[in-house]
Structure formats: structure tokens, C-alpha cells
């Protein structure tokens, strides 16, 4: 059952993938300006621009260009970056891991932050503890990411010197250390979202009859909170987490810029501004697949946590 479900979901990604492919292909070509102008800048003369566009095959009719693109794609070739002049696949291979690391790190930090605080707020609901927790996250949720990032950077990085400013290091330990602040920035945002829902679902679960039954069975409070309350409350949070991780992967641009992290977010923005068609196409397709996979993983995790789910 579950295997065939996974297979089906994976197959479902294909039409989505095709649609994304066509969409992004057309969309980038709708952008005003052409890659040659963008790369060459103001100074290049008309002939040079024309020559460059010809070299890139951009003078061919759109359907032909699309066919070539698909042909190359089938060979696993996403083309070369127009501005960086290296294969897109290599670029993605270099940068995606960094972004993924950051994303997962942020998700972990966010969850570690959100879960205990949400539970605390739920247990102490309508007290000042609850009010403070909710207020702090609300403020975090109301401020732009770059502002929070800069404040963290200034305070924890520059002023206190606890963390390095920007970069991402070489070893795994380095990554953990260097990416702490950016992951915290993203994680805070995520936590703010999670706390809201998790608090609500903990409150809901707390009033569930099976919690009452567990108490009637004489279970210890710790057992009740962990086994019965939290586990059930997390189920509804998992989906939200999945949705947000999907958004995080594509939305790390600003964090990556502020913290000088050479991830795909930054690459994507540069590529769009630089009309680097192959990079935009390659990245978009990668995002689409990744996000689809995250959603699938979320659903599977949800099904694991909640045996009642019917995967269909």
C-alpha cells in the first residue's frame, strides 16, 4: 500500500515537472531584456550583443529552443550558465547542499525552539507566560527578515563576538557554527508560525478524552505530555512544517545575501537579474522536484505519526 503510494506520488511529480518546465521556459523569455545585454552591460555595441545571442542559440524560434532544451534535459544536461560560463548542474551541485543544510538547520532550530515554548504556552494558557511567548513570536513575525538578520548579526556576531559574521565554513562543525545565525533567523520565523499552530493543537489535545483516560489510568504527567499530548499535537504541525520547509528552500534569498552564504537562493536572484536562462530553468526545476519530495516526505511522516491516515 505505502510503496505503491510512494510510487504514485513520484509519478505524479512528472506532470508537475513538465508543466513547471514549460512555464519557466516561457516565463524567462517573457522577461524584458536578453541575456547578452544583461551579461554584457551598457557598454556593448549592438553587433556584439547580437553575436552573443546568436552564439547562445537565442535567435532560433521558441519551439526549436524548447526542443533543444528538452533534448539536453533528457541527457541530464541543464546547459551552461551564461554569465558564469560553467555547467548549471555543477553550480547547483555546489550550492544546493549549502542551502539545504541551512534549511534543515533552520527547521531543526525552529522546531527545537517552538515545541517546548508552544507546550509551555498551551499548558499555561491565558497566563502571562503564554502572553509573553506569544507576544515575542508575534513581534518576530512582524519584522522583515533582513532586519532581524542584521540585528542578530550586529548583536551576537559583531557586538558579542559569539558567532562569525557570514560565510559557512568548511567542515560540518564549521557549518554548524557559521550557519547558526542565519539558521536562527529563519528558524525564528518558522518557530513563530509553528508556535501558533502547535499551541492550539496542544490545547486541543489536552482536552481530548484519551488524555483524560490516560490520567484515569494513573499515568505520570511526563508520560502523558510526551506520549499522549505532544505526539498527537505534532501531527498537525508536521504538515505545516513541510509546507514551510518548501517555502524556506526557495525563500532563503535574503538570508543568504545578508549572511554572505553562496547558496541557491542568491544564485537564483542573480540569475534572474542577469537573465541567465539556463540557471533559472535549472534551479526552478530543481526546486520543483525538491519541494515535491519534501511534500511527499511530509505526507509519509504524517502517515507514520498518525496511523489513521489513509494514503490515497
Amino acid at each position: 500500500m505505502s510503496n505503491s503510494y510512494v510510487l504514485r506520488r513520484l509519478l505524479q511529480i512528472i506532470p508537475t515537472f513538465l508543466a513547471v518546465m514549460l512555464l519557466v521556459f516561457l516565463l524567462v523569455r517573457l522577461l524584458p531584456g536578453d541575456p547578452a545585454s544583461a551579461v554584457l552591460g551598457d557598454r556593448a555595441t549592438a553587433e556584439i550583443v547580437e553575436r552573443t545571442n546568436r552564439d547562445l542559440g537565442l535567435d532560433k524560434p521558441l519551439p526549436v529552443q524548447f526542443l533543444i532544451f528538452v533534448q539536453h534535459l533528457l541527457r541530464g544536461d541543464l546547459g551552461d550558465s551564461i554569465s558564469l560560463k560553467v555547467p548549471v548542474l555543477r553550480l547547483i551541485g555546489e550550492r544546493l547542499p549549502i542551502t539545504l543544510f541551512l534549511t534543515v538547520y533552520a527547521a531543526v532550530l525552529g522546531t527545537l525552539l517552538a515545541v517546548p515554548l508552544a507546550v509551555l504556552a498551551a499548558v499555561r494558557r491565558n497566563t502571562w507566560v503564554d502572553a509573553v511567548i506569544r507576544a515575542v513570536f508575534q513581534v518576530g513575525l512582524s519584522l522583515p527578515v533582513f532586519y532581524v538578520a542584521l540585528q542578530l548579526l550586529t548583536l551576537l556576531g559583531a557586538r558579542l563576538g559569539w558567532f562569525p559574521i557570514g560565510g559557512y565554513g568548511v567542515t560540518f562543525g564549521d557549518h554548524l557554527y557559521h550557519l547558526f545565525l542565519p539558521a536562527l533567523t529563519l528558524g525564528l520565523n518558522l518557530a513563530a508560525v509553528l508556535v501558533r499552530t502547535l499551541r492550539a493543537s496542544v490545547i486541543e489535545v489536552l482536552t481530548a478524552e484519551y488524555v483524560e483516560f490516560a490520567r484515569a489510568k494513573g499515568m505520570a504527567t511526563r508520560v502523558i505530555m510526551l506520549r499522549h499530548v505532544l505526539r498527537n499535537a505534532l501531527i498537525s504541525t508536521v504538515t505545516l512544517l513541510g509546507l514551510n520547509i518548501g517555502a524556506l528552500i526557495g525563500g532563503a534569498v535574503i538570508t543568504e545575501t545578508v549572511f554572505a552564504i553562496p547558496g541557491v537562493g542568491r544564485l537564483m536572484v542573480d540569475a534572474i537579474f542577469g537573465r541567465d536562462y539556463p540557471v533559472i530553468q535549472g534551479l526552478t526545476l530543481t526546486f520543483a522536484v525538491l519541494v515535491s519530495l519534501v511534500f511527499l516526505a511530509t505526507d509519509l511522516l504524517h502517515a507514520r505519526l498518525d496511523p489513521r491516515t489513509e494514503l490515497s
Partner: protein
Amino acid sequence: MTAVSSEHSTTTPAPQDVMVITGLTKTFAAPQSVLARWRGQPRRVVQALTDVNLDVRRGETLGIVGESGCGKSTLARTLVRLYDADSGSVRYGGQEVTALRGAALRAYNRSVQMIFQDPYSSLNPRMTVEQVLREALTVHHMRPADQVEGRIAELLSLVGLPPEAAGRLPHEFSGGQRQRIGIARALALEPEVLIADELVSALDVSVQAQVVNLLLELQERLHLTVLFVAHDLRLVRHLSHRVAVMYLGRVVEVADTQTMFQAPLHPYTQALLAAAPTLEPGSRTAAPALSGELPSPLNVPSGCAFRTRCPHAFARCAEERPALLTQGSGTQVACHLYDPQPGTATP
């Protein structure tokens, strides 16, 4: 003993029948994976109604009883066309109900109304009683605009609600009062047949009696035909002229109330009656009425659906589905025990 197969008896409706149900079958598709479909595995279906034959007589109260999941609600809902039947026919006043569409369907629904079980979810929580009734009256142009107001008051008094109830929202009423609102809503269309699905199941006994009395009184005054779906046997016995017993999507026995309760024929009916607690302290029988549980409707036993729990089951029960046959007492029963065919062991 003239055993006439019900298939034949219903082709020419008797004059007293308002509604004749023949061979009504309804299934629901169970979720199935794409892979299984590719492999050509048959779709798993919930057998909610199987070849149901029943006639409803004018002015009577027909009780329908059976265990949870046996298809009582499905039958009720199929009759008001909330569900479309897979096959079979429902005839109402010379019309084939299962084929009705559009205006004809709306006209049919006006004469065959339904009252729902749940006093909480059967009313739109955001509409006042007046809005609920006004909507029903105006959509069907039951009264000219200037008489709508008066009719609303009339309906309220008919179901025993004070006039000031009109402006209130459902949550301001108790369960019993809400069921009255539901009844008023159905009566607004001046129906001929009223299908009450577990009308009082959610109510406390003391309140139950109030609603039951209301139903009795309305039936008297408005000459309603009532299909009373319930699992409280004592209530069904009190209210119904006739009773139909269902098991796993099939009607297993239909009889006059008296006959049914005094001389139940089908082993399932017998078990059901035995299991119902009486008000006589200490009258519990030594042995349980029935062991085992209802089989899954996804996987209905072959032949007689009841055979897996039946103390009298024999070989034929697994091979052949018993038809609903009329016995001498007038009781219709679907059980091989009462089918005079060769090789039958009598109980």
C-alpha cells in the same frame, strides 16, 4: 402457505402503496490505489444496500430497524435522492423516482421530506428559525409573499414552539426544540411522506417522549406517511404499524408490528429482540443473544449475510441468497429456514 416471490408481487402496486421499492442496490467505492487499478484488481465496494424490496403504505408508519451500518440511513437517503441508486427502482405515485431530475425532482422532494438525526448539525448555525422556514417557503413558492409571515407562525405553533422562537439562532435551543425546528422545516413543504432518520436517538428519554407525541399528533392531523428509522426497538414498536428489519444492506424481515414482536421469524430478528434490555429487573437470559460482530460491508458473506452469526446456518445458507418471501402470517422473511425447498432442514 403461499410463498410468492416479492419480485412478482410488486410489479403491480397495490392501491394502498405510496412508495414501492424494488431491487434497490447501492454501493460505495472504497478508496483504491492506482497500482491496484493498473493490476486490474476489482474495485472494493461497500455493499450498503443489496436488492432491497419494500413497499410503503399510505398513512402508515413503517419502522426500519437494524444494527449500525446495516444501511438504514442509506435507504432513507436514497429514497430522497441524496444518493443515486446503483440499480433497482423506487416508484412513487406512478413516477420512477430514481430517474427524476430538475423540477420534477424538486416537486418529488416537496412531497417526500426527510428529518435528520443530529439536532446539532441539521440546522445551519448561522440562520435564525425564521430564516430557515422563510427560505423553505419562498424557494418553493408555498405561499404568496404576504402570507409567509403568517405561515411561519403557524408552523411554529404546529410543532409547539413559541412565536418568539422565530428570531433565535439554533444554538439558543435545546436538542428537542431543534428537532422540532427540523420538523417544521420539513412540514413547510407540506409533504405526504416524512422520512425520519433516528429522529429522537440523540435526545433524552423524557424529551424523546415529547417529540414522539408531536410526531403522532402531526401524522394524525396531516395524514402523513412516516418512515421511522431507529434502533430503539421499544420506540419502533410503539410507533410503527409495520416494521422492516435490515441486516448488512438487506431487508431480512417485514411484518406487522404485533406479529414481528410476538413471533419474529428471522433468526436475526429473534436475536435483536432478545438482546434489547427490558425494563424488568433480573430478566436477563442466561446466554447472550448473539455472538460475534457485524461482518465488514466490504466483505459481505456469500449467500445469506447473517449466516456467519446464525445459530441455525446450514450449507445452503452459504450458497444461495434467500429471497424475501411472504409467509402465511403475512410476514415477509428472507431466510432459508422458511423456504419450502427440498433438502431444507427445519429448525
